[in-house]
């Protein structure tokens, strides 16, 4: 079993690194301009000149998938970064101080958690309008809650340990205790949670773009490509197949990485 855990981590890291490389070197790797149209070669199947085929406007699907990785990476990373900071801050305060502050903050979390999945994001975008920035904003609004609960739970179990009590007795400020003594010990669960969160954010963005509420043209998004492909399922199934495969591979990679890291750092199973 330990070998399986390591394989998971290796596969996950490989996929994530590939995503970063695709995103970073898109202009070098991409065989065509993703927005370049060729109306004479619409809906062409995969072939030698266009490895994954062409869409309804003759654009190269492989190039659009490569450039679409930028959107996925941007949304995934920024959502986790921003919601992670907000959630960690709120969870730290709630867990460390406890009492009424904790009750108020956790009841706020419960109210947010009463909204399932994408619903709040869809509602926000319905009001704000579609677009990359609004998608990130909407996903952050929902994303901070799980970080807050995670950090709060961890701090509740750590704050009564002897070394923290010693720090309090020495007169170290609360902020310093939280930042220097508590949070560094939480980095592992936060990182594990972040990998799962990033996978969720990428799927959520793709789902919103699929519904027409996310990324707008001329930017390229995998979800948007799926939505466009749905209209041509009968005659050009490749338009749907390859963007979906890209989403699945990236999400699988992040889930494998998260699973592997969680199993590796779980002291009960090592």
């Amino acid at each position, binding site marked *: *079993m330990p070998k*399986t855990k390591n394989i998971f981590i290796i596969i996950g890291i490989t996929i994530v690194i590939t995503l970063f490389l695709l995103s970073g070197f898109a202009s070098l790797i991409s065989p065509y301009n993703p927005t370049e149209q060729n109306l004479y070669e619409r809906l062409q199947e995969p072939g030698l000149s266009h490895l994954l085929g062409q869409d309804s406007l003759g654009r190269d699907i492989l190039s659009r998938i490569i450039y679409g990785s930028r959107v996925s990476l941007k949304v995934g990373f920024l959502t986790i970064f921003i919601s992670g900071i907000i959630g960690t801050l709120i969870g730290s305060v709630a867990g460390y101080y406890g009492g009424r502050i904790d009750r108020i903050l956790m*009841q706020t979390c*419960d*109210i*947010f958690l*009463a*909204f*399932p*999945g*994408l*619903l*709040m994001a*869809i*509602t*926000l*975008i*319905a*009001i*704000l*309008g579609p677009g990359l920035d609004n998608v990130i904003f909407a996903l952050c609004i929902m994303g901070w809650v799980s970080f807050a609960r995670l950090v709060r739970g961890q701090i509740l179990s750590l704050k009564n340990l002897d070394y923290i009590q010693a720090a309090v007795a020495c007169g170290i400020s609360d902020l310093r205790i939280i930042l220097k003594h508590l949070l560094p010990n939480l980095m592992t669960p936060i990182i594990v949670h972040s990998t799962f969160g990033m*996978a969720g954010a990428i*799927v959520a963005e*793709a*789902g919103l773009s*699929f*519904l*027409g*509420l996310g990324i707008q043209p001329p930017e390229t998004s995998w*979800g948007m490509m*799926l939505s466009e*492909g*749905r209209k041509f*399922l*009968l005659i050009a*199934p490749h338009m*749907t*197949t390859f*963007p*979906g*495969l890209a*989403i*699945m591979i990236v*999400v*699988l990679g992040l*889930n*494998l990485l998260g*699973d592997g890291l969680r199993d590796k750092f779980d002291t009960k199973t090592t």
Partner: protein
Amino acid sequence: MNNYIIKRLFLTIPTVFGVVTLVFLVIHFIPGDPVEIMLGETASQTDKAKLRADLGLDLPVFTQYFRFLSNLIQGDLGTSFYFRQPAFELIMIRLPATIELSLGALAVALIISVPLGIFSAVRQYSYIDQGSLFLALFGVSMPNFWLGPLLIIVFSINLGWLPVSGRGDIFNLILPAITLGSSMAAILTRMIRSSLLDTLKEEYIKTARAKGLPEPIILFKHALRNALLPVVTILGLQFGSLLAGSIITETIFSWPGIGRLTIQAIVSRDYPLVQVCVMAIALGYVFINLLTDLVYAWIDPRIKYE
């Protein structure tokens, strides 16, 4: 048990209140003018002022809020700007379709996850166990807005076995139910496996084996009943999530449910209907969680006495 039910119902009230308030706050405090979104930027100031007055948006926020709560209690959920019908009627017409789809997805999830989870736990580390774990990981990673079109390509277009879209008989339900239920099946498989593995290590199971009880009796009469307790909780939470997941599935298969109505409302910028649809789905989620807690208390007598 009655005390527990009453207590749990009382605890739901602040959550319901919080959800309703949050919907109101989100729609009223997010930057952007809903009247301008609904009418477009080229509408005249007179038209905008009239619509603003019709929707009560020219009133102070607190007045709007109390008016909103008052109408809600009286069952007045407003009128759809696009459909020109009471929003409550529109929701009630489409609710059975969403419930049918959610129950279908639940059935798919249970049919797949229960036998697979049990077999994986009983034959831990076997090829089937490893395969089911990997399949579960795929199921969780595969977005339903990709799975749906793939199923349509294979079963509707290439094989011609099932209809492409729409609601009708059981054959119309199969593909949407599989699309919506697949990720739930993946999560439940892992949950059942994990829970059963923990239960099979318990002392009373060792005692049962030492007494010479047949393995099927140990598994189905003793282990499974206790192993399924945490699964019930997850089941409830996941079933609630199906309501939100139905938004995408109903769009793919043109299923006439609340999810598709929500998207139609957003696309047509029907602000009152968006508000009502979101609230309906969120409140459905709250009540399913309540039901889950009550079922859990009914299954596990220890909960009642705590």
